[in-house]
């Protein structure tokens, strides 16, 4: 991790600690929680797309596996929530390996449609065999550790953003390591990377699994926060939403994931005032931001700032 990033993480940490002190409004904190959950999924996809150059339209599937597995394990098998979350991450990661091996041989549109296919199959499975079927199921135990139940929104806010801090540190370390260089090498030229002795297949699978692990962690946290699950939240629509976060935030910078999650999650809330028009305004904002901020917000801000200081 570079010095700049270390300071950025520190600032993020301070912001997180301060935020609930500034606003005691549970509604805003709840939005903060969902921003965090989405950011977790988006961080994984940013590494996969921006650094390893692999597209995925199936993140909702892993998000769903994380949520459903953790819920089922803690509800039906009485596993402590912490363990059920870990177990669900492992299950999602194993699924990711199985999916990655055939899929990652494909490129571009083909990879996109293959991951889309897997994501939708997982969605159908949840619909057909998930507890409660399409209607979903409730009464999932809320997050608890060593007998202590997290009951307030503030506690959940801290829990989720603590996870993000860890995930950010891990991810920033990773992309600034030798492995990170290798990943970016794969992004720019697979053929050159492989002749330099980089086992691209293995690395791609690993990144894919990492993104699945982040998504499943997010799903599990979602399940134990909302305590109700139904398959509708884990469809292709969510995968597209995450993709949108990554692109709008800027996929060449991992901070873009958080910025993208922030914007895409908050936008509908802000647009509540528009009532019926919101989908129209939403589509308009997405289109315009894609047209005029091609690189995404964070890289744009960084670049503008650099240009500005150079003057």
């Amino acid at each position, binding site marked *: 991790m570079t010095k*700049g990033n270390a*300071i*950025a993480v520190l*600032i993020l940490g301070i*912001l997180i600690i301060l*935020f609930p002190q500034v*606003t005691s*409004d*549970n*509604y*805003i904190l*709840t*939005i903060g929680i*969902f921003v965090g959950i989405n950011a977790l999924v988006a961080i994984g996809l940013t590494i996969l797309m921006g650094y390893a150059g692999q597209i995925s339209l199936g993140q909702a599937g892993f998000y769903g596996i994380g949520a459903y597995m953790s819920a089922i394990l803690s509800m039906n098998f009485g596993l402590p929530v912490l363990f059920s979350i870990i177990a669900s991450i492992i299950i999602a990661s194993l699924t990711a390996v199985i999916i990655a091996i055939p899929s990652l041989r494909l490129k571009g549109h083909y990879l996109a449609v293959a991951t889309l296919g897997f994501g939708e199959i997982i969605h159908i499975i949840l*619909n057909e065999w998930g507890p*409660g*079927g*399409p*209607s*979903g*199921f*409730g*009464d999932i135990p*809320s997050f608890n550790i060593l007998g202590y139940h997290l*009951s307030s*929104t503030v506690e959940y806010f801290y829990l989720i953003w603590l996870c993000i801090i860890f995930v950010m540190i891990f991810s920033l370390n990773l992309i600034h390591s030798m492995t990170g260089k290798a990943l970016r090498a794969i992004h720019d030229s697979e053929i050159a990377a492989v002749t330099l002795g980089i086992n691209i297949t293995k690395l791609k699978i690993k990144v894919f699994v990492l993104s699945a692990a982040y998504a499943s962690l997010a799903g599990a946290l*979602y399940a134990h926060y*909302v*305590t*109700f699950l*139904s398959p*509708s*939240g884990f469809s292709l629509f969510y995968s597209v939403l995450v993709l949108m976060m990554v692109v709008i935030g800027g996929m060449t910078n991992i*901070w873009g994931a958080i*910025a993208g999650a*922030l*914007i895409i999650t*908050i936008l*509908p*809330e*802000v647009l*509540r*005032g528009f*009532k*019926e028009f*919101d*989908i129209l305004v939403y589509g308009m904002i997405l289109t315009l931001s894609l047209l005029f901020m091609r690189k995404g*917000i*964070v890289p744009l*801000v*960084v670049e*503008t*700032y*650099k240009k500005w*200081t150079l003057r």
Partner: protein
Amino acid sequence: MRKIGRLLLFLLIFTALIFFSSTNSFCKEPYNIGAIFSVTGPASFLGEPEKNTVLMLVEQINKAGGINGHPLKVIIEDSKSDETQAVLAAKKLLEKDKVLAIIGPSTTGESMALVPIMTQAQTLLISAAAGANITQPVKERYWIFKTAQYDTSAVEAIYTYMKKQGINKVGIITITTGFGDAGRKALIEMAPKFGISIVADERYGPKDTDMTTQLVKIKSAGAQAVINWSVGPGQVIVTKNWHALKMGIPLYQSHGWGSKKNLELAGKAAEGVIAPLGRLVVWEKLPDKHPQKPILKKYVTEYEARYKSEPGTFGGHAYDALMMVVEALKNVGPDKKKIRDYIETKIKKWPGTGGIFNMSPNDHCGLDMTAFEMVIVKNGDWEILK
């Protein structure tokens, strides 16, 4: 130095968020009620009339002087047919608007997602969705009520009628959404009680375009009748396919069928379709002394005059929910616990649009199969079956 740029961005967005979310108006001591409906998204056909109904009622109530002099303010939130959005909306209503009670959401899933939140906030929720597990087990649903009839009641009405017709073997076709799934479960569970066997169990997706295959399978399984359980365009497509195939066995629809729009869309194909419908749809054909008739007449005519469309049974669920809360407020004032208790104990033989409600500590819905009339489509209109 780039982190300063990042920091600025963060601050900018947070302030924007705070700015946008604090747009409260300053009325003089209004009673704040929250409403969460699926105004957009796949379940928007529910949320739309519900929202309209509430807007209309609030205007009427305030024009008539409000509730004991207090203006009524209903803050309507769109859940976009999505549970996460419903949770966010509920949090906003509870925390920001400090509402006394929430009516809605429109679907079972969204309602279920709100159960823990409402329980924790100790605030009344009157859902407009049908699922039985919204209010059951009652002990764990202390703060939760609903105004939509149970799916099981609709199934009961259908099966009772079928027995009279001598039908023993049915094929069911359901949509793969919460509504269809709940109906499917009820149909399968209750069949043995009526001595009915389900010979085919077919499904289709909410955006499917053709159900011929499923219907042909039902026919070839030897069913004496088809029951379709869905809302939205699916029920019209099934009706059209059923008509085109000349299946020779009757088609039953769920209680979601009760919209004139369906008759328009299906045209001739709808002739002979049977469904258990709330009296709202057929109020004109009710005998004058029926206790629901005056309410229905007022509601439906006013709604149609105002919105140039029919409210449907769903709008009625919102009507009942809001009127219950209003009545409670009138009698016990702005006290969350008292409002809840009033609804549990005082809503007895209470004629609403959905039926005659009898709430009790054991039943937070208060409707049974008598809320339905069996209705057949004849000459492009409804006709009550005896």
